[in-house]
């Protein structure tokens, strides 16, 4: 009897904890949505209303009507998807190698990967722009995608390697004993088990690319990504517009996470491996 009660108490405690964490993580989102959908006047009052009493789409409309929002959105999606494809294509094999082979220079390699992340991008911006100007990639989405791939690559390699480590090598060897080629064993046996890690890496890549402003602003001129177009210029706009812009940029990234979440939680609940 008491064990049952203990179990129930435990389950209640877990729920309370979940709700508390959700409040902490969700409340700021609620507030930015509230601020984005409030009228400019109501944001100037004190105390601020904590409930959506005066909704207005005025600031959102001005923001969405401004030049280049559609083009910027298109560019951002394009950059995000190219970065995603490139960083997975380059990063997953490398992650596999880091996990499976103790090759000479594995540690220097990991540090080398981190190098682009360890330097503040502002210091790289001018030499980087020169490289792209010289190669004719300046002011194209490809240039931005290449930069974002570089920024996401360490994340992709390191996360996938941590996941590949956990996939037992025997499964792969067993598949090969039964006649599968190495690439086939990899795609059929290892890849499915590594899917959560790949999904996590994909989420990071896309979100990193979606939110990166400074590099995108330096490498393009007339073909901005949406955040570069919006966030950097919004810094000088009245608060109400900054909320509207900040909120509008969140939505596509949320859709993407909702989509990828299923792969991330793919294995959950399976006990058979």
């Amino acid at each position: 009897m008491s064990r049952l009660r203990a179990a129930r108490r435990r389950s209640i405690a877990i729920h309370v904890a979940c709700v508390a964490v959700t409040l902490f993580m969700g409340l700021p989102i609620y507030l930015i949505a509230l601020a984005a959908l409030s009228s400019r006047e109501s944001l100037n009052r004190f105390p601020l209303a904590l409930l959506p009493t005066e909704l207005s789409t005025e600031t959102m409309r001005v923001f969405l009507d401004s030049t280049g929002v559609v083009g910027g959105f298109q560019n951002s999606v394009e950059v995000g998807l190219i970065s995603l494809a490139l960083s997975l294509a380059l990063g997953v094999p490398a992650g596999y190698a880091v996990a499976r082979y103790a090759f000479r220079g594995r540690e220097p390699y990991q540090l080398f990967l981190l190098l682009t992340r360890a330097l503040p991008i502002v210091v790289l911006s001018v030499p980087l722009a020169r490289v792209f100007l010289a190669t004719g990639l300046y002011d194209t989405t490809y240039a931005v995608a290449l930069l974002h791939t570089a920024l996401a690559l360490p994340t992709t390699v390191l996360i996938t390697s941590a996941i590949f480590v956990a996939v037992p090598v025997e499964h792969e060897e067993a598949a090969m004993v039964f006649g599968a080629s190495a690439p086939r064993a990899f795609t059929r046996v290892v890849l499915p088990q590594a899917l959560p890690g790949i999904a996590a890496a994909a989420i990071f890549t896309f979100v990193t690319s979606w939110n990166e402003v400074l590099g995108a602003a330096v490498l393009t001129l007339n073909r901005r990504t949406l955040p570069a177009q919006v966030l950097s210029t919004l810094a000088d706009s009245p608060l109400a517009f900054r909320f509207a812009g900040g909120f509008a940029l969140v939505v596509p990234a949320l859709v993407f996470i909702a989509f990828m979440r299923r792969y991330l939680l793919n294995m959950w609940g399976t006990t058979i491996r």
Partner: protein
Amino acid sequence: MARHAGRPGTDLRLDRRRLLGLGLAAGAAPLLGACGGASTTGSDEEGAITFLSTQFTPVEERQRFEQILRDRVKGGAVAYNTVEPNVFSSTITSQVGAGRVQVSLAGGLHGDFAPHADKFENLDDLAGKLADRRIPTDLADLGKLSGGATTYLPWMQASYVLAVNKRALQWLPSGADVQNLTYDQLLTWVGDARRANGNKPVLGLPCGPKGLYHRFFQGYLLPSFTGGQMTTFRSPAAVLAWQYMVELWAQTAPASTNYDNMQEPLQRGEVLIAWDHVARLVNAPADKPDDWIMAPAPRGPQGLGYLLVVAGLAIPKGAPDADRARQVIETLTTPDVQLEVLRRNAFFPVVEAALPTDLPPAVALEAEAVRRQQDAQGALLALPPVGLGAKDGEVSQIFKNCFKEICLDRRPVQQVLDRQAQQLNAILDEVKVPCWRPDPVVAGQTCRVQ
């Protein structure tokens, strides 16, 4: 999620197929999209030229200026790109450095151009052609950055004034005129107001990371107390000025260290009195102009120091459409377009133009205050540092450091000034430029702190 438990295999296969689909979609996207990305500035139109600017970055101002460009500039579109000063700087540096310039026209503040004098064309010919616009020499000279050659042509000007919510007038000391304050009256006023207002400070200053408070010291406080900006940097009068600043800061809203512009805190009612750039005050009275007063800055023992801000237009060396850029400059400096910019975006004309009577109320308030400030008895014109090039920012930082050490950290004034003066002289010795107003301007003599 528990439903996965029974049949992980099927699910995995399905997911793999989906992942493959996603990969294919990712691969196809660049092919479907326009080659290299879609234009976000209208640069796709035929004959469009690229205009890179640090001005009108707020989203509404940009939209209004783009409209002016569409209405007034003939012969092709102008793709107006607003960027932050750092991106402006990197873009100009990398493009001119690589010899592949895409920007045809650059617009920015004096300080944006100063570090890059060698990267822009000499516009002396255009300046001659535009002589009939009657740009005041003070302004035109600011644009002569390297060896007297015109690097940029004045585009717009602005100044700094006080914005006062009428609610604060009730605490104005008797005998004081809000349109003709002294610094002492200002201190008494904000002190009384604070005590009467439940100990909440009513004065705000733009001391945030992007705030322009260093201009308050360079162009207002120090000239008004010392009559100079650089030469008198560590004089006894300067010590008095900074001691005054310590007292004023004690009556200033502490949140000021977070304010980049004053119009928002004013609009929210966080503060009632503020000093700032006109373009950063203009939205405060926008909704209820009747509740507001705009006034000249206070005067000190040496007069009413005030600062002139200039934005200019320049053409990068190797610009692809330099000729069209010149035409655009001509158009933007016609009195007509200049007044349109004032009406819509609150930047003042640099050319001779009679102010119309039908200005928006907030702009009219500012225009009046700026005029009073210039015409005031004992008005003392100060300029932002001239000819410092890349050191412009570092000199401004020295004034900010003085503020931090004297007002925030409460270090002894004279010691701080002596130490910062050394730094200042080190920079001045390096750049070897003559002083600028209000310091005595002697050609060929390096400006130094006395």
